């Protein structure tokens, strides 16, 4: 790609955008979103991807709790009219809910009644190749909201009316660039990272001015010539090396550092891109004002397994081994539960251990934190290599949660899966997939005699001990987890369409409800007029569906492959 192609921001294209206003709108008395509110959100609101900048996925609401959750019941639902994977948390700001759906829609809803205020429908191009047709939500700032789209634009809408305020082209969707994440808003900057590692792009994180959409900085996740880390690449591999940054980052408000997860290297077999390949499969600590890389930690080197580590680590104040420190906690796709220490300009390795079975790692170097690879399970060209866990890893993008009450980390994990493929040289055609293998050669294996696949795990990061675990005998677990001060752990993620609440301390199943489809989306808790609500989108698709199809083919497991598609926002409360 040329420099010119990378610098396409600022293009305004209002012509292809539609917003409609329904009965309940426009919104009166909207509460503008400020830095102070984002840094210290009111307990009843959910305005960031994981509610708070530290990414804990925890609500301090406790009106719905272990005692009364058995009386939790749906109070309203809302059909989005869209199929495919509904992965976004419903975002709530003082009684107004914003729901992002696949195909570039945003729906503003009265969070108490379920009435629609307005709906924005992006008119996506006919020739768009949507590998991951989804959106993970909208960011808020002042009286605007921000949507990242699969045709690679960032759009600002008026939160009260849905009217388009600005529309910035980030890069060219025809070159395999796309966006699926919820923008992170920090001090008037709208920050996103690009998807597209599977198309042989060069990853980046980019910030736009929240007021006018002008690009402020762009930091590539793969260092170019003259930049530190460039020597971890050979030849021109860095130009097409992947390193997508397609999940929302977290933010340390004290040190003013954003932590952003970086994805796998491209194409998949590591022998096609010799070297450690910074900063693929890493976490970056970035200055939100300049984009400068202040610190990094690479979880595993020369990624060969499609194990991107895009979920940003959770920021937790931790006490471990007799000392207190500010940690970064990351249950990795590489099957390792990572405990790191964050300092203003440094990230230190503290500990790591496998949280599901893996045959890829023989251990971790204590000094450096580098995992030691077993070459027998590292994909190469021309030979089929098998490895555990599968391509989806021990835990994919669905988020873990942390409860500061229990001090446990809740991990949506998958075990008893292995995968494999044969590396193959494939020419790069811009805009077309570039995996380094034939898709029909990709396999998923299940361990004979395995009695379950999905696992909801509770870990104590201070001791490295697993406290409890729930197993799912006939399903993967592919959904984000949320914890609440009511000592509840909320999660969907299974192919039986259930939404569940567990006891945060014991793992006891306290409540479940079958929904219209499977739940990949993130549960949230919010409060309006003194009532606590739990909300989640049900809408199966994308990778959950892919794993499902694979499992269903193993007919000795007894897994059904009949999860219906179609999105519905579900909102629950306890009957009074």
């Amino acid at each position: 790609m040329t420099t010119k192609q990378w610098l396409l921001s600022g293009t305004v294209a209002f012509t292809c955008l539609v917003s409609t206003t329904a009965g309940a709108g426009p919104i009166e008395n909207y509460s503008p979103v400020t830095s102070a509110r984002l840094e210290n959100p009111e307990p009843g609101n959910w305005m960031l991807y994981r509610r708070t900048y530290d990414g804990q996925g925890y609500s301090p609401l406790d009106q719905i709790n272990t005692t009364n959750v058995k009386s939790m019941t749906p109070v309203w639902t809302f059909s989005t009219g869209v199929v495919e994977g509904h992965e976004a948390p419903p975002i709530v700001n003082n009684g107004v809910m914003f729901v992002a759906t696949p195909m570039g829609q945003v729906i503003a809803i009265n969070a108490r009644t379920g009435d629609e205020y307005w709906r924005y429908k992006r008119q996506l191009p006919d020739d768009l190749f949507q590998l991951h047709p989804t959106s993970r939500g909208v960011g808020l700032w002042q009286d605007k909201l921000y949507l990242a789209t699969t045709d690679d634009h960032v759009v600002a809408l008026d939160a009260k009316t849905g009217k388009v305020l600005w529309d910035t082209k980030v890069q060219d969707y025809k070159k395999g660039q796309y966006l699926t994440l919820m923008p992170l808003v920090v001090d008037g900057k709208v920050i996103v990272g690009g998807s597209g590692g599977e198309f042989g792009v060069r990853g980046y994180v980019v910030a736009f001015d929240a007021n006018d959409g002008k690009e402020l900085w762009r930091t590539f996740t793969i260092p170019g010539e003259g930049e530190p880390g460039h020597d971890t690449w050979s030849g021109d591999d860095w130009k097409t090396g992947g390193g997508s940054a397609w999940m929302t980052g977290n933010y340390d408000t004290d040190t003013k550092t954003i932590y952003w997860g970086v994805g796998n290297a491209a194409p998949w077999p590591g022998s096609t891109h010799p070297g450690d390949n910074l900063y693929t499969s890493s976490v970056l600590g970035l200055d939100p004002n300049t984009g400068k890389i202040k610190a990094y930690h690479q979880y595993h080197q020369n990624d060969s397994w499609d194990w991107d580590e895009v979920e940003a680590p959770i920021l937790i104040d931790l006490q471990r081994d007799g000392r207190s420190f500010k940690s970064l906690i990351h249950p990795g796709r590489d099957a390792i539960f990572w405990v790191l220490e964050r300092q203003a300009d440094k990230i230190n390795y503290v500990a790591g251990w496998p949280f599901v079975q893996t045959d890829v790692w023989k251990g971790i170097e204590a000094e450096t934190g580098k995992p030691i690879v077993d070459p027998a399970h590292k994909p190469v060209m021309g030979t089929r290599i098998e490895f555990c866990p599968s391509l989806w890893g021990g835990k994919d993008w669905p988020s873990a949660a942390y409860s500061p009450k229990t001090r446990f980390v809740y991990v949506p994990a998958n075990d008893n899966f292995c995968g494999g493929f044969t590396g193959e040289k494939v020419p790069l055609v811009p805009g077309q997939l570039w995996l380094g293998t034939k898709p029909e050669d990709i396999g998923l294996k299940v361990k004979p005699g395995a009695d379950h696949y999905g696992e909801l795990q509770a870990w104590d990061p201070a001791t490295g001990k697993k406290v409890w675990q729930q197993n799912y005998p006939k399903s993967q677990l592919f959904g984000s987890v949320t914890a609440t001060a009511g000592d509840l752990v909320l999660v969907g993620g299974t192919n039986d369409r259930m939404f569940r609440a567990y006891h945060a301390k014991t793992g006891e199943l306290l409540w479940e409800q079958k929904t219209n489809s499977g739940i990949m989306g993130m549960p949230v808790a919010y409060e309006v007029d003194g009532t606590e609500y739990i909300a989640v989108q049900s809408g199966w698709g994308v990778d959950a569906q892919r794993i499902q199809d694979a499992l269903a083919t193993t007919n000795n497991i007894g897994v059904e492959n009949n999860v219906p598609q179609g999105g519905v926002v579900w909102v629950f409360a306890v009957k009074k």
Partner: protein
Amino acid sequence: MSSSSDQTRRTVILAVLATAAGAAASPSARADEDQPGSDERPQKADVLVFAEGERTGEVIKPEDLKLGGPPVRAWPKDPKTSVVRKGSRLNEVLVIRLDPAELDDETRARFADGIVAYSDTCTHAGCPITGWVKGATGDKNVFKCFCHNSEFDPRQSAQVVFGPAPRRLAALPLTTADGYFTVAATFVGKVGVQQPG
């Protein structure tokens, strides 16, 4: 570290693509984008040319297609202006030769001597269809989109036989004359995906 060392597990051919995964590379509309007419949809009397491989750009003849597949990726070409219509990926087609006895009536009526052509743009989310593999149900090979595993049967107007795709592939009717086959009419059905309501 713990290990799942038993390598005798039952293999599942998946067609899956993990988070950063997708379908195989297919040739793409990049060069000649600016040629007038290159992004117009295929027209009656267009010929089809190889879209990839050593013979890229050469006109495809019936004998170039092996009975029973695999399909060949092709671009339409205006024989009068020589413009290859590869300015839009929505113009790329899969052309395949099948036993006419296997085709249903509608398919047989629309195509030439068992040679059938369909849009390669999956009606689900717009990925290119790249697979010719045994279907999830049944014993026959079908077109497969590896993005989300949709399958289409070219013997039955490319109707969906598996997966999330909502409707069949657009068909490109063909006719034969003088040892060639040419496009007989514009696409039947919408090419590509449909916006939700």
